[in-house]
């Protein structure tokens, strides 16, 4: 065999070895691609939220959608009443709406089922009270009062050197927080909240009771808009 034929020619054994190496390289490429795509898929699908959070989110959305459906049904009924065309029907719709809005805005005394939470503590801050009020709001509170001061979103709950104020008035502990709404949901919220509060060293006592008829007499003073203009 000439030197040339040795340099360019290949024995069958060498060829099969080369094919083997190429096959293995191909296999590596395929496996690497699958591996990388698989990892990317896993990372993408698990980004952000875990399954437990998703389950809670689904629960929240179900409840929210039920509430929206109830509101839609109520509005549809109001629309039908107004379409009937009688003045008395229109007046009744408007009167009911005014009463509902006055209650929501804290402008009138109200009553209904709910919970009364009592927190005895030293050193709790306005932020703690804001969190407690928000927890009850998430639990479906439709009216709230703290130590005979009505609270709705927009009423300032602030920290001052003298302690916590609601609407500029000092509310020293113990705090008696009355909330009206779905008693079962409020009880769940109050139960969780008081458990967490009892774990706080500053809190001496945190209890709640469910009542069939909680009365809230305190009201918020209406503030006319100074800067904003309506439609």
């Amino acid at each position, binding site marked *: 065999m000439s030197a040339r034929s040795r340099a360019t020619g290949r024995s069958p054994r060498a060829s099969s070895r080369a094919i083997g190496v190429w096959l*293995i390289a191909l*296999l*590596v490429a395929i*496996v690497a691609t699958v*591996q990388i795509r*698989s*990892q990317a898929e*896993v990372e993408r*699908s*698990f980004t952000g*939220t875990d*399954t437990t*959070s*998703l389950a809670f*989110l*689904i629960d929240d*959305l179900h409840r*929210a*959608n039920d*509430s*929206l459906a*109830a*509101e*839609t049904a109520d*509005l*549809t009924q*109001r*629309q039908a009443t*107004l*379409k009937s065309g009688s003045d008395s029907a*229109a*007046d009744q719709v*408007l009167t009911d709406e*005014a*009463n*509902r*809005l*006055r*209650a*929501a*805005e804290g402008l*009138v*005394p*109200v009553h*209904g*089922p709910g919970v009364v939470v009592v927190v005895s503590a030293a050193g709790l801050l306005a932020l703690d009270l*804001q*969190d407690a009020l928000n927890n009850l*709001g*998430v639990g479906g*509170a*439709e*009216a709230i009062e703290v130590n005979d001061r009505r609270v709705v*979103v927009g009423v300032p*709950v602030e920290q001052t050197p003298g302690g916590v104020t609601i609407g500029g008035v000092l509310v020293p502990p113990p705090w008696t927080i009355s909330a009206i709404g779905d008693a079962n949901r409020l009880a769940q919220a109050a139960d969780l909240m008081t458990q967490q509060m009892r774990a706080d060293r500053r809190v001496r006592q945190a209890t709640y009771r469910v009542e069939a008829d909680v009365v809230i007499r305190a009201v918020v003073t209406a*503030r006319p*808009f*100074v*800067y904003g203009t*309506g439609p």
Partner: protein
Amino acid sequence: MSRSRVVSIFVVAAVALATGFLVAGQVKVQLLTPSNQVARYQALVRSVQQLEASNADSRQKIAALRSQIDALEAIAAQRSAATQALQNQVADLRAHAGLTTLRGPGVEVDLANGVPGLDSSSEPGYLVNFKDVQDLVNLLFARGAEGIAVNGRRITPLSAFSGSEGQVIIDQGPPVTAPIRLSAVGDRNRMEAALSDPSALSDIRAREVQFQLQVSFSGGPDLALPAYDSSLDTRHVGTL
């Protein structure tokens, strides 16, 4: 043994080793996330998406119904002075409840996530959470806001904030995540002063330093807030 044979043996060995690692990695991934687990997760995500779509539909329907009711009330008010007086009262109450649009001077506050800290065991302080939004809403109302919207969702007297980690749920709306923009109409000067006060919003300020949480604001002469488009639930309260 020739040099080329030794090289080819090493090449084959290296390729085989790499294959072994990759196959092992692949098997490990599949063991960690069996296909049914991924499928379950995807099913949950689909449920959330369907519920969010239904939520958006309902809110659109509510907004449309409120608009139609307004028009019907206006027609009824033309027929009677008493009805007209009632309608005026209700219009004012609706405006204060956030059920109508509001325009005026104000501020816009932008919140964006920071960067994760080195300590992975700590709370995800780099994420904007619902308490940040709650704190800002409380501060702005205390300092002259007459109306507030968060990412286009109007705040009402009964609004509440919840959520986990970086999700913020407001009332019956779907969760929102950063970047979050709060728009507030009211006393612009007081609100700007409050937002510039280093002693206010202590938790957010601390996380600005620790996690580079991003907070910025700007004032505007004419901001517009949308009307609330969800339920203002007062089914359980009765007036005394």
